């Protein structure tokens, strides 16, 4: 098992190196100069000496190859550098924004699992019943609905309902407070975004759970389990669900990895200062160091989640053994 994990991590190195090279090239292709943005903001006159000094301080006066090699060396040493825009260490910038993105992603995943697995399973067990039709409509509508539009609609609803009840419209607060400091306040910030993202997420998962369960329930070993006289509950929970969950686990993992950096639009709708918005701001401000670190974080999460998913396979399906 240990050897498998090490091999997988080594195999991920080319992917990480490729992503590092790609983001480095893309950031250099985007026209603009962080020093011009920094020194010229507010309509200030640009002094060539100051501009040269800024380039020298940020290492932008070095040849591209030297910049790339320095970047790779720092990456290998887990030194993500100093943000070119704010002057703060990149880790500090990321740690400031990560909790809100992580919380929305985790909460959305919990909502998706709680909705998708029971409903998907019931829908498959009661195929072509009224419940099955409702679940299928819910699922396909969830896939077709952009989560940012659902977010706007939920805000319209909250605004109008709160105005009707209390007389003054209420909107979720935007200043993030950690869950352990003030749970209610924290939930009032992250609950709506998590529900809107979680609904779409659950729709995809629900469909896969349903189709996987339908396939598994037709297998011979289910017939055997029933023939042994096992209770239907045990047949479903222990024999069918555990096998049907294999593809579902992959999907949940991939979707979760995507949510870490992919919530840009939802964060925009709900004015959340998360990782997605930080990434867009970093690119727009030409903050190469921050943008590169964020992309590497997203890719690393993707690689690690994929590995965890594969390891979960072995736990769910005893036939799979990694060595």
């Amino acid at each position, binding site marked *: 098992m240990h050897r498998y994990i090490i091999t997988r991590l080594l195999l991920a190195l*080319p*992917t990480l190196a490729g992503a590092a090279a790609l983001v480095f090239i893309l950031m250099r292709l985007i026209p603009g100069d962080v020093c011009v943005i920094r020194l010229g903001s507010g309509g200030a006159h640009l002094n060539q000496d100051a501009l040269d000094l800024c380039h020298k301080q940020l290492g932008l006066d070095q040849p591209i190859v030297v910049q790339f090699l320095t970047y790779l060396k720092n990456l290998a040493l887990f030194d993500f550098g100093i943000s070119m825009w704010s002057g703060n260490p990149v880790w500090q910038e990321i740690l400031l924004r990560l909790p809100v993105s992580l919380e929305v992603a985790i909460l959305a995943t919990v909502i998706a699992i709680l909705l998708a697995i029971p409903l998907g399973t019931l829908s498959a067990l009661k195929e072509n019943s009224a419940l099955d039709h409702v679940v299928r409509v819910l699922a*396909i509508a969830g896939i077709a609905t952009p989560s*940012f*539009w659902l977010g706007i609609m939920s805000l*319209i609803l909250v605004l109008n309902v709160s105005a009707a009840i209390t007389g003054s419209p209420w909107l979720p607060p935007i200043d993030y407070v950690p869950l352990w400091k003030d749970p209610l306040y924290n939930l009032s910030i992250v609950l709506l975004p998590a529900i809107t993202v979680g609904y779409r997420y659950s729709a995809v998962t629900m469909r896969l759970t349903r189709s996987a369960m339908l396939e598994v329930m037709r297998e011979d070993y289910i017939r055997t389990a029933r023939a042994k006289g096992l209770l239907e509950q045990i047949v479903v929970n222990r024999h069918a669900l555990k096998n049907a969950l294999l593809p579902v686990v992959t999907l949940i993992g991939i979707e979760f990895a995507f949510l870490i950096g*992919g919530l840009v639009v939802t964060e925009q709708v709900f004015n959340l200062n998360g990782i997605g918005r930080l990434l*867009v701001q970093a690119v727009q401000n030409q903050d190469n160091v921050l943008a590169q670190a964020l992309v590497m974080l997203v890719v690393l999460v993707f690689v690690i989640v994929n590995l965890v998913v594969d390891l979960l396979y072995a736990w769910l399906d005893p036939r799979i053994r990694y060595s």
Partner: protein
Amino acid sequence: MAVIAPARPDAEAEALLRRYTLLGRSLDFFRRKPLGTIGLIIVLVFAVAGLFAEFIAPFDPEENDFASMMFAPNLTHWLGTDQFGRDIFSRLVFGARTAMIVGFGAAVGGGIIGLVLGVTSAYFGGWFDLVLQRIFDILMAFPLIILALAVVSVFGTGVFNVVIAITIPLVPRCGRVVRASALAVREVPYVDAARALGFGHARIVLCHMVPNVVAPFLILLSAFVGQAILAEASLSYLGLGVQEPVAAWGLMLQGSAEDYATTAPWIAIFPGLAIVFTVLGASLFGDALRDAIDPKLRDR
């Protein structure tokens, strides 16, 4: 003694043959998959609306009319007007053109490049396959927003550049699925036969392997149309896609739609519904197509 099976009656044979012509199979699909047919009709309605937008839209979608700002839906402006007095129905009709160009453009572009790369990767195998799969890994893990920002910053905004930005992440997703099917096709004797006859790599890949992985490709293509429309809406909403005053559904939802959430909610409601219906149509059609093509599900 050998027993010869009796010949099928002519009518039955004809019916069987008819099932395998394009028209016959289409009619069979419409009869067996009513939901898929409804999906196809929805997509076609939006496609026709986009194609003939000039003849359908009652107003100029880009012309401001400050005398009729934020009108609620009425007999003149069926879906109301926005904060610049532009007719929402006309903008939706022209927005359908943008959605269809991006949806079909990115889906077909990403699909075909992915198809050729996926089959080529499976055919050659070895180092070529390994390197291409790692490139696919990178592109799949890479955030779409960065790619879109880079494309838009380098080439400028516009429908064509949005198509490029959305096409790139679709390529590896198609490539992966197609490669899996093509790996099985590679082992089939007719590919060996083609090789033994001295056919070139390009001929074997394009004429002998590609046609045999068309089924998963078609299913992916229909799913990609919906996904590309959703991606275009998201990018336009973030200001990274199509720019004002061009009519695009995501753009119609940008910023102002939230500002007028209580005073003029129709500005946000109708463009969102247009996105939902189009993607719903594409998904329903895609699902039905998968069921119709997949031999395991065909007769359920």
